[in-house]
């Protein structure tokens, strides 16, 4: 129970300020990236018409997500964003499933990871909007329906970042706390495997998909 | 009422067998209070299940408001019965609270796991339709 709120931190003094690194999160993110690279390597090595197991999985991922992107944006514009969406989903999936292994934590359990991914989606969506419509048209959208609604519209846009990142954080953090606490209460007897299956595999996959879909939707709202 | 009786018989006997086996194992493993509690809890769970079946046929052929009040009445009566083992386990040192709580949930547990086993092991499907 004691390790509920414990964080390994590395604090580096830098130009009069303290830079704080959450070591666990950084190492776990690296592991997720390494897992993605290994998966990509295994999936694309020895490509053939009779695909091996990894190639099947990889093709499934890529073709489904590409179709999804082209559904939401259109064929031409979708092409630019396909790799982004695909990579985002796979990264989140690997991150969320990391809690299955002992002594490993989900990097998404730390608010910094979802918040930075959410900010990334926000910046990309608005950049895409400006590029598509031109700055004037883009800015006009904020003065709908009347000009003095502009501050509220801006807060509404900013709150999307908060909602998308806190949703992921809250689900993953809540799930991992439930698994931890219930395992303590029942002395790790019967329930924990089922809880892990539900919260880590099922909820983790759903939330990774929801995060990706919402990023895609935000882009498509700005572009169309 | 014949299908109800057979369903009852099946689930009650499974739950009782499971409870006696688990209770026996626990008693042999020197956790006597817990084993006793589990068997006691299962017994009351079975009594509750049987009373529930009796109340269902009484609740039919009435209006919605009457059904609601009848439901409340039957709930308070049955839960009063189920409170007995819990109170006993809190007051007496020889019966463990956790065992009783686990025992009280044995009937729903048996029902749900029976149906999930049917999905997982298709060979049971023929046996299932009683």
């Amino acid at each position, binding site marked *: 129970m004691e390790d509920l709120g414990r964080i390994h931190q590395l604090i580096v003094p830098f130009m009069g300020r303290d830079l704080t690194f959450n070591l666990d999160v950084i190492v776990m993110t690296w592991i997720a990236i390494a897992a993605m690279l290994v998966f990509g390597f295994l999936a694309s090595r020895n490509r053939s018409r009779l695909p091996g197991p990894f190639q099947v999985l990889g093709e499934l991922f890529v073709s489904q997500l590409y179709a999804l992107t082209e559904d939401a944006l259109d064929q031409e514009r979708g092409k630019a964003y396909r790799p982004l969406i695909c990579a985002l989903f796979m990264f989140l999936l690997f991150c969320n499933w990391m809690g299955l292994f002992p002594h490993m934590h989900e990097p998404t359990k730390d608010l910094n990871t979802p918040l930075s991914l959410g900010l990334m989606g926000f910046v990309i969506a608005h950049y895409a909007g400006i590029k598509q419509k031109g700055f004037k048209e883009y800015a006009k959208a904020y003065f709908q329906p009347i000009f003095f609604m502009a501050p509220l519209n801006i*807060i509404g846009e900013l709150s999307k970042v908060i909602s998308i990142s806190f949703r992921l954080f809250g689900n993953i953090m809540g799930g991992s706390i439930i698994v931890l606490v219930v395992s303590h209460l029942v002395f790790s007897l019967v329930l924990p495997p089922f809880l892990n299956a539900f919260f880590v595999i099922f909820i983790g996959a759903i939330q990774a998909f929801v995060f990706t879909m919402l990023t895609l*939707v935000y882009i498509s*709202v700005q572009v169309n | 009422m014949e299908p109800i009786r057979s369903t009852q018989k099946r689930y009650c006997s499974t739950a009782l067998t499971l409870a006696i086996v688990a209770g026996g194992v626990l008693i042999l493993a020197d956790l006597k209070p817990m084993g006793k509690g589990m068997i006691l809890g299962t017994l009351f769970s079975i009594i509750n299940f049987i009373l529930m079946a009796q109340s269902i046929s009484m609740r039919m052929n009435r209006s919605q408001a009457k059904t609601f009040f009848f439901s409340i009445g039957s709930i308070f009566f049955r839960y009063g019965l189920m409170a007995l083992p819990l109170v006993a386990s809190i007051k007496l040192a020889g019966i463990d609270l956790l065992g009783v709580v686990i025992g009280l949930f044995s009937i729903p547990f048996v029902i749900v796991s029976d149906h999930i086993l049917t999905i997982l092991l298709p060979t049971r499907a023929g046996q299932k339709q009683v």
Partner: protein
Amino acid sequence: MAIEGIDLIKAASFLGAGLAMGLGAIGPGVGEGMVGAKACEAIGKNPGEAGLLTRTMLVGQAVSESTGIYSLVIALLLLFVV
């Protein structure tokens, strides 16, 4: 427990912030759910227009979410400005 003027005001504003956001979330939550339900129904009836329907759903939800955002703004004002 000493209750003085400034303490009372702070306590009241915290309670107000919590209730404003909490109760203010009920309406938009149910309303957006209804929008989603109707959108699913429309897609079930007319799958060809799925893209347009999803976009309409998002716009409708964004509009009905604005009351939730007003609650958020009020709650933040109560927390940090009062």
